[in-house]
Each structure stands twice: as structure tokens, then as C-alpha cells.
């Protein structure tokens, strides 16, 4: 079975909920962001409450849940960033 190894980066409020800034995920290939997110929610159930407001990036570029992942990708979960 082939796998895809990606880094999941939590920012802001997502980092608070996950309790870490970054973690590595190993997913069954082929994999999309939605599989990575689903695995993250299993590990940190409270993330599900935030999902409606989180935006996703792969390697610094906007992405949707359907985007395909490849080895070494960095997936960022970005909460709303406001003024201050």
C-alpha cells in the first residue's frame, strides 16, 4: 500500500484546539485534503467546531477539501485573522 506523508500546520485558534503548531500525517494514497482534515478531527475532535471558519492552504496557496496531496505537502489550517 502506498502512502502520502504531509505536514499539517495549525494556526491561531486551530493551534489552540490542536495543542500543537504542526504534526505529520501519513495517509493512504491517493489522498485529498479532506482525508487529512478528517484525520485531524479524529485526533482533535474540537476542530470540527471550527471547520466552517477555517481556510485551507497547500504550500502557501489556497486550496479546497478536494485538492490532491503529494508527499511533502504542507497543509495549513488558517482561522480568521482580524484587526488589531
Amino acid at each position, binding site marked *: 500500500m502506498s502512502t502520502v506523508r504531509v505536514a499539517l500546520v495549525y494556526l491561531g485558534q486551530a493551534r489552540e484546539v490542536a495543542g500543537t503548531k504542526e504534526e505529520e500525517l501519513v495517509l493512504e494514497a491517493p489522498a485529498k485534503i479532506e482525508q487529512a482534515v478528517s484525520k485531524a478531527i479524529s485526533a482533535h475532535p474540537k476542530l470540527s467546531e471550527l471547520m*466552517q471558519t477555517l481556510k485551507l492552504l497547500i504550500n502557501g496557496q489556497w486550496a479546497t477539501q478536494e485538492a490532491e496531496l503529494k508527499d511533502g505537502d504542507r497543509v495549513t489550517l488558517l482561522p*480568521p485573522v482580524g484587526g*488589531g
Partner: protein
Amino acid sequence: MGKILRVNLSARAINTEPLREEVARKFIGGKGLSARILFDELKPGIDALGPENKLVIAAGPMGAIPFSGNSRFSVCAKSPLGRGWGESYSGGYMAPKIKQAGFDAIIVEGVSETPVWLYVNEGKAEIRDASNYWGKTTEETESGIKKELGDTDKRQTSVASIGPAGEKLVRYAAVMNDLREAAGRSGMGAVMGSKKLKAWACKGALKVPVHDDKKLKDYVRQCVSEVKKGPYIQPLRDYGTAGDTDDLSASGRLPTKNFLQGTFAGADKITGETIVSSGLLTGRDTCWACSTNCKRVVESKSPYVLEKEVGGQEYETTAAFGSYCMNNDMYAIAKANQLCNLYGLDTISTGVVVGFAMEAYERGILTKDQTGGLELKWGNPDAIVKLVELIGNREGIGDLLGEGVWRAAQKLGKGAESFAMHVKGREIPMHEPRGKRNIGLMYAVADRGACHMEWEHDDYWESDTYLRPELGLVASELPNRTLLDYGLSKVKIARVQADLWAMCDSLVVCVFDIYPGGGIEHSTLLGILNAATGWDMSMKEYMEVGERAIDLTRAFNAREGLTRDDDTLPKRLMDPLPDGAFAGKPFGPDILDSMLDNYYNLRGWDKKTGLPTRAALQRVGLDSVADQLDKLNVLPN
């Protein structure tokens, strides 16, 4: 209802005036009340640094009621940075002290012949000699005044002062209070300096009367439970406002290299989390009655000496002296921040000025001879720190740069205007309009000049989570709300939020604790206001207060000759970014024009001139303002 203290420094006269209930209810305090006073009392065209300008220091009607976020006061005047309206806000411990000293607002007019400070204590005031404090830092001034008053407790008196920058009329000089808090923006410190007013101090324990104590306590309890629900509160407590730094770089929206880039490779070295993990952070602090604890305490002996009392860097400061200047040294950022606090400088404007100077140096417009040998290369931490000192003292190149980027660029010539990042003379804050369209609109239309605090940013409105039908934000009526959308939905949100935040600036509460980022609902604030005053204000009337304040500052600027042409952005912000998630997506003039058209329409302002119409002014009871604009031929037909 309340009292206003009027101090004329030329005549050395002190008077107390009543704050009439009908004025208080229409204009509240802070922004609204100050706009009313300054519109009525200032003549158009006066020199902001001349004797005719007036400074209005104001709390709000809920002042001294203890709940999170209720610790701010305003300082307003005609701004010496641009050609029109100036306003600034600060936290700390001053706001309740203004009220407990017996006043809702203090109007300072005229000019003293010699340096003075103003002492306000339980309904009385006196003008005292400040010769001994002139030339001193804000820290030296505050501790000197407290010693002079014989204070034994550090919170007995709240002192606000200017440092050398304000005395020397640096146009973006700040007013500093409680050592680390700044009414930084718009150059209010320079207005104090022009009046030879070194400081004011408020002391007292007068009880502020409330109409319905039981109801008030219920609403305050509600605040305590609501504030915890705000999505931004815990990250704010853990990492401070600077916790957003790496988030913004990750999403391509961190102002970098004088707005030439949207990402910064050193963002993780300066972000709030690193300030904590490195040990630079030695404590967290807060403002009066606030449970959020967003204030940073930093200490260090090297590479720069940092004093724990003088404050730690906020996000704006982190970006302004960090990514904006290509500097990844958080200790240099912390030092530049503390120097700004001691000299009394706005950290946003100062950082933008330093970034401007670095680009001018790179282009050969500023030479090593002009900088006195200072190597103003991008990312040079020592040069940043040294330049802040030069600006604070207006020494060498600091004299020119103390004028702000708009005037400095005009004096330098050679194309420097093309990279002077300001709107209406005020330096642009650390948010990227090419990745948040409503920020571009906000920078353009804000009457005080480029501002990031007129309404909550685009990110919050992409999902339905924070929309509130009772505030006119109905999901089904607001399609297309992504970061890059700029149609009517986005502008409607901006308009509603602008009214709400202008009301917050009139109540003078901290928006960090208020919906949507903080958890306190506007209905709860309204409950507190009504319980405190005995009014029966509705949410419609509450929002109208904000609208009225915005119309009034726009009328103030109309009188000064500002029009739609001034509601613009530097060309650089309209060109696409080369990097990050928003690379290649410009905020072109067509986008701004479309947003302005919609915004003016929603406000009832004239699309051609951007000025308020008679109908718009009458809608919020500003008929006399319309009459005055008409007399001056600036009321649109």
C-alpha cells in the same frame, strides 16, 4: 448628565460645563462627542499645530463600570499629519480615572507660554509647571508627576504624557499613558506639544452614578460569560496580537518590505508564539477590569536592554519594525517599541517611516551622508533602533522623517512619493488590502486617514458563523463574501460594521472583547448603557449613533476641502503582489471605484464628491451641520 472640563492654556482659565443629556444621548462620548465639539468649535483651515486647534480627551458614559474591554479613552483634534480629522484611542487605567476624577471629557485649548501639566482631581483642576519635565521621556515624566503628587500606590493616579517627540512636533507623536499604553495614531502627541502641554493626570475615587444598579450587575455578569466565547480571546491571551504575524505571512498578507511583498521568511522568528517560547516574554498584563490579558511584558539585558515596565510589542509594531523593514530580530523590534513608548511615537507610523527610509536608501535617494553614516539597509536591526532615536529627538535625518512619509517624500523628491505609503497623510497600518478587499476600502474612506480599525476584517465574514440578522447581517441577503469579493455584499458588511465600531469608539470600549472577535454582544453593551443612564435606547438608535459620528467626521473633512479624490490608495497597493497566496491579483482602481460607489450609496453620500448630502445628515439629526456645509458651498446638490 455629566461634566466637561474646559482648560484654556493661553488664558490659564479652567471652567466646568454641563454635558447636556440630549448631546450625550446623540453623541455618547469618545469619537461622537469629540466630533461634535470639534466640528462646532474649530474653524476650517486652521493649523493643526497652531493655537486655534483644540484637543478633546474623552471617556464614555459607561466609564468606570468594570467589565472586560471597558478601559479605553479617546484623544481627538485636527490632525497634524493630514489635512483633516484626527482621532486616537488608548487603554490602560486612564479611562476610569477621568470619570472618577469627575469628568466625561476634557477640552484643552490655546497655548501655554511655558511647559505645563494639568492635574485633575475629584471635580477640580489646576495647571502646574512642567519645566522640570520638559525634555524628559514619558517614563521620567510619569514617575516625576506621581512623586510630585506623593502617590504611594502606582494605580492611584493615571498619567498621560508626551516625550521628546511630541515636544519637537514629530507629526506622528503619540500620547502615552500608564507607561506602556499609547493613543498613538494621528499625531495627538504633537498637538499636545504645540500647546506646551507635557502631561495630564487624573486622580480620584468619585462614585459614578448609575440608574439601575441591579440591572447593570446582571448585564456585567453576562459580559463575563460572553467574553470567554470570543474566538480570538484565548489566542490573544496566549500570544498577544503579535500571534497573528505568522498566520498573515502564511496566507500571503503580511506587509513586507514597504508593501512590496506579502510573505516574510522571518515571520516565525518574530511572531507572538516565538516571543513566548524564546523567553523574551516574562509576563502578561491587562488594562483596567479586563480579563483578556493581551498585554505583553518583555525583559532582556542583551542584545538590547528592555525594561518590563515599558511594554511589549503588539502585532502592528511587530510587523512595522519587522517584516515591513525585512527585520527578523524580535529583540530589535522590542527595543524599537520601547523607544517609541519612551519618546512618545506612534509605532505604526514610525515603522512605515523607517521602511520608507530604507527603500529611499536602497534607491540612492537617501545617501549615507544624509543619514549621518547610518547603513539603512533592509533588515539592519541596529539601524532601525538608531533611526527611532533620531526621529524621537528630531536629530539629523530624523528631523526630515519626523514630518511623516507624505511630507518627507515631497521634500526628498526624485520619485519618493511613489513609495510613500499613506492615505490622507497618515501612514498605512500592517494589513494587506490585496488579500482583504474591505481593508482597501477602509484605508481609503477612513476620515482619520489609513486605518485598520474601522470595522472587522474580511476573514470573519466568509462563513455564516458571525453574521447576525438583528444587526442587519442576513446570510441569504449577502452572497459572495470571499476575501477577494468586493461587491455589494462586502460593502454592506463594511457599512454595518463601521456603524457598530464607531459606536464602540463613542462608548470607548475595546473591540477585541466585542463581537465578532471577542464574545460580548452589542445587545449586552446596549443593556449596560441603558441600565447606567436610564435610557431606553433601541438597537436602531444605538447603530445610528455610529452613523452620526461617521457623518460628522466626514463633514469635518468636507469643510477642510477633502473629497472623493482623497479616498484613494497608493498605486503600489493597487498593483499585484509578486508572492504568496494572492500573487498576481491586483486591487485595481476599478475595484476601489466600485467599492466607493457602493459605500457612498449605502451612506447616502454623493457619489461624485464623496461628501454627505443634506438627506444623509438630516436622517441622523445633523440638520445644522448640513446648513453649515451649505454656507461653505461643500454640500452636494
